[in-house]
């Protein structure tokens, strides 16, 4: 029983982190119909920014993550406005190719700039854990989880309640109509991409704090974002959160009761089953299927 509880807690915490990795990816896909294959490299780039901040000026990673968010926001905004926007109306293949190329460039750039050394952001508290009975709750992961949930909730509030958020939603639903209402679609797209990159960067700093990273880890985060976003469903801001938590739990329980090498296959099995039963994902919305692309 203890083992089950321990696996559940750990799986939930891990799931929260995955959700934060994927939430921006899901947003960009839902609003812009761009599958951003560079999401994993944004995560790792964020981790490096957090690491540098911690290393050079001793900034705690939970503060450094805001610096990472700012850096990645600017990068995301510029990339979208001046590069991805050029092909955003093209077939999805083209944007896939472009973001895939960006991913290769960023990963190789990080290899050159930071080397392939493995790094971790060392703090005095991240590896400590609270003992609740015989179950341990790691402090670093708990903080990261709380932040992931908070950020998702803030994102939902921003998107649903502010003018900017509404314009993001409106552009996602019907770009032509949004333009007619005076929304600058290019700016909104760039803003969306910037926010997504910033969220990925924050997730990266969290990952660097509770684990290790190097440039080659980027691909696995892109893959995970993809699984989480599709599983949770697009068009609903809670999709990534639900998807992340489910994948985290499935992996933890699977690891506990099945041979440990099956965990990755298990995540995809769950994805396939969910897509068969609910093609829009767990909490995805059908109204996005009817959206107009002009």
């Amino acid at each position: 029983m203890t083992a089950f509880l321990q696996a559940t807690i750990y799986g939930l915490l891990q799931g929260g982190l995955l959700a934060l990795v994927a939430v921006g990816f899901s947003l960009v896909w839902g609003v812009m119909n761009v599958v951003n294959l560079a999401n994993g490299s944004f995560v790792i780039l964020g981790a490096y920014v957090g690491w540098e901040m911690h290393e050079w000026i001793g900034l705690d990673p939970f503060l450094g993550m805001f610096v990472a968010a700012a850096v990645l926001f600017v990068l995301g905004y510029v990339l979208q406005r001046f590069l991805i926007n050029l092909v955003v109306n093209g077939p999805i293949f083209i944007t896939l190719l472009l973001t895939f190329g960006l991913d290769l460039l960023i990963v190789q750039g990080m290899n050159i700039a930071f080397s392939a050394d493995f790094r971790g952001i060392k703090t005095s508290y991240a590896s400590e854990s609270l003992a609740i009975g015989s179950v341990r709750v790691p402090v670093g992961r708990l903080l990261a989880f709380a932040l992931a949930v908070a950020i998702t909730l803030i994102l939902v509030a921003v998107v649903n309640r502010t003018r900017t958020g509404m314009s993001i939603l409106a552009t996602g639903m019907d770009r032509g109509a949004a333009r007619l209402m005076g929304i600058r679609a290019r700016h909104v797209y760039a803003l969306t991409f910037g926010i997504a990159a910033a969220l990925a960067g924050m997730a990266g700093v969290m990952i660097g704090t509770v684990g290790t990273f190097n440039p080659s880890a980027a691909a696995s985060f892109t893959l995970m974002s993809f699984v989480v976003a599709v599983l949770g469903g697009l068009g609903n801001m809670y999709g990534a959160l639900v998807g992340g938590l489910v994948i985290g739990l499935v992996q933890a329980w699977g690891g506990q009761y099945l041979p440990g090498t099956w965990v990755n296959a298990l995540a995809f099995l769950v994805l396939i089953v969910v897509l068969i039963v609910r093609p829009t994902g767990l909490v995805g919305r059908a109204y996005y299927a009817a959206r107009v692309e002009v």
Partner: protein
Amino acid sequence: MRSRTLAVAVVITASSLVVAGCGSKGEATSTSSAGSGTLAIGASLSLTGALAREGQLTKEGYQLCQDKVNAKGGVDIGGTKVKLAIQYQDDTSKPDVAAQLVDQFNDKGIKLILSSYGSANTEAQAAVIERNGQVMADSAGADNKIFSKGYKRTFAVLSPATEYASSIVKAIADLATPKPKTVVFLSADDGFSKTVTEGGMKTAKDQGFTVLDPQYFPSQTSDVSSALTKVKGEHPDVIIGSVHLVEGVAIIKQAKELGVTPAGFGETVAPPTPDFAKTLGTQAENVLGSSQWTDATKGTDKYFGSAKDYAKDIQAKFGHAPDYHNAEATAACLAFALATEKAGSSQPDKVRDALSGLDTESFFGKIKFDPTGQNIYKPMSVIQVQSGKALTVWPKESAEAKMIWPGTHQ
């Protein structure tokens, strides 16, 4: 429309992620074949992808070898001094690309090959080497399976995989007081790590330990929490990880998070690399690890001198302390240099025969191959991280420090 787009996106994303590592076939080579006065050697290396870190260390080892040998005028082949010219290609950490690159070197007439990093890459290369009549000096492919296929053209300077965990078990049996009773192996699921685990478990049983069921997890994962949760209730005295760096760091970090406290940890591959102590800080303290080479290794050779001299050269050229991945790469290259001198020729068959008869001391210890191509005469050392440094604690005759046991605060 939406669902079709989704389906297309799923397919493309999945396939492009698979293709991800296969992108570049490598950098351009400097020379196309052995010109006059140079001996061309091909090296496919993992310079990008999951093994980029170890691939880079391997490249440094090869480079230092080329520099030191050429600084002495080169290798003496039949009375003529010939300089080494190693050509590098990036195999992106993929075994199939590593094997293709060996073929490409063959097409260019390059018959002497320095291996890529890791058992999977080297195993793929060894089959091609055999078919093409090339010769390979293996610097980092330790899985015993490579040497059980009857290949005659692959020679590994390093100790075989079965020794990696066995040496740690032997060191604990020799030096740990009170002697621990139960041991559990946490292992990555790649071929090399599994062979390490099998070898280690056999040795542990022979040494009288109670060996619990091993736990496996995917290779290169950074989450080993399930394996740790499973063994937590069994309260093992020793946890030995058959791992690479990522999984090795994860075991120590997550064991702390989950409150798993054996009397000591031992891990293959990870602890001697500088990144291990850098990433883990004080958590790395007292973790045991096995090493192919330390600067306390006995033996000298004419190109590199002693192990201490070698350590100084790496420090001077690359600005960091030597890692055993550097040393084993240099040793493989050294084996080629000595074998071509002994053969008096760079003909692959003659170099092969010279390698199989090679029996020499070196900064890397003894190099002498058995009929399968393994350097089984070379022992492994066991190191322990003490005050952030990897110090040799076993075997006793080359120990730099006493083993601290128990290694954790239980």
